[in-house]
């Protein structure tokens, strides 16, 4: 499915380009949140091993979902 629009005379908007844009925005948010959580947990280490395990689960699921989204648009 394709919806070609022509904005500002040079930039064309298609379903694929919108999907790419959404993907990069969400990937960026995920990366920022991951870094923040990582430093947060390192700083406030009262969570101990539980926090470390949860952090790994978070990253594993986030990377899997990002990978699925990436392969779906490529």
């Amino acid at each position, binding site marked *: *499915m394709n919806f070609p629009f022509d904005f500002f005379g040079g930039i064309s908007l298609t*379903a694929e380009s919108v999907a790419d844009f959404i993907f990069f925005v969400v990937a960026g948010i995920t990366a920022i949140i991951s870094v923040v959580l990582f430093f947060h947990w390192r*700083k406030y280490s009262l969570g101990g091993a539980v926090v470390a395990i949860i952090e790994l689960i*978070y990253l594993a699921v986030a990377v899997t979902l990002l990978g699925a*989204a990436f392969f779906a648009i490529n």
Partner: protein
Amino acid sequence: MIKLEVGEQIIKIVRRHYFVILPMVVSLLLMALAPLILYYFLISNFLSLDQNIVGAIQNFVLRWNVFGYSIWLLLLWIMFFIEWTDYYLDLWVITDSRILDVEQKGFFHREVTSFNYSQIQDITVETRGLIETFFKFGTLHIQTAGHNREIVIRDASRPEEARSLILRLQEKSGAMPNQ
């Protein structure tokens, strides 16, 4: 990071009861299922939509289902983690000489209050309703002298045990409880 004094020992860490986070988890699960329910609702004969519209929806979903659903789940996953961090890092550390109240108010906003047992004037446990009674959680009110205010530990797991422990430690530390 919480720095303990030399020789200070952590006796107990009190966290909010898991029941507090349960409504959020259920909401996120429902939100995760919402696109599937919406899709089957739209293509079912319940709405009697035009076949062209149903076909367009099916084509769109066929092309974008993996991408869209992955992104949707990822956003929900991030939301869950933000909430979970807030829940898990909200805690009360009972040591042999004081109580530390750590309140996470956002990713970068953290409030740590510390008070000694000698400052404690009164401790009250409030358990409201069937759910709090059944799941053994409630609110601890600690009236302190130095802070001249009440420190409230909301939705604490097993508040009665925490209260008894604090009173025992207060007695042990030589500070006389008022009750």
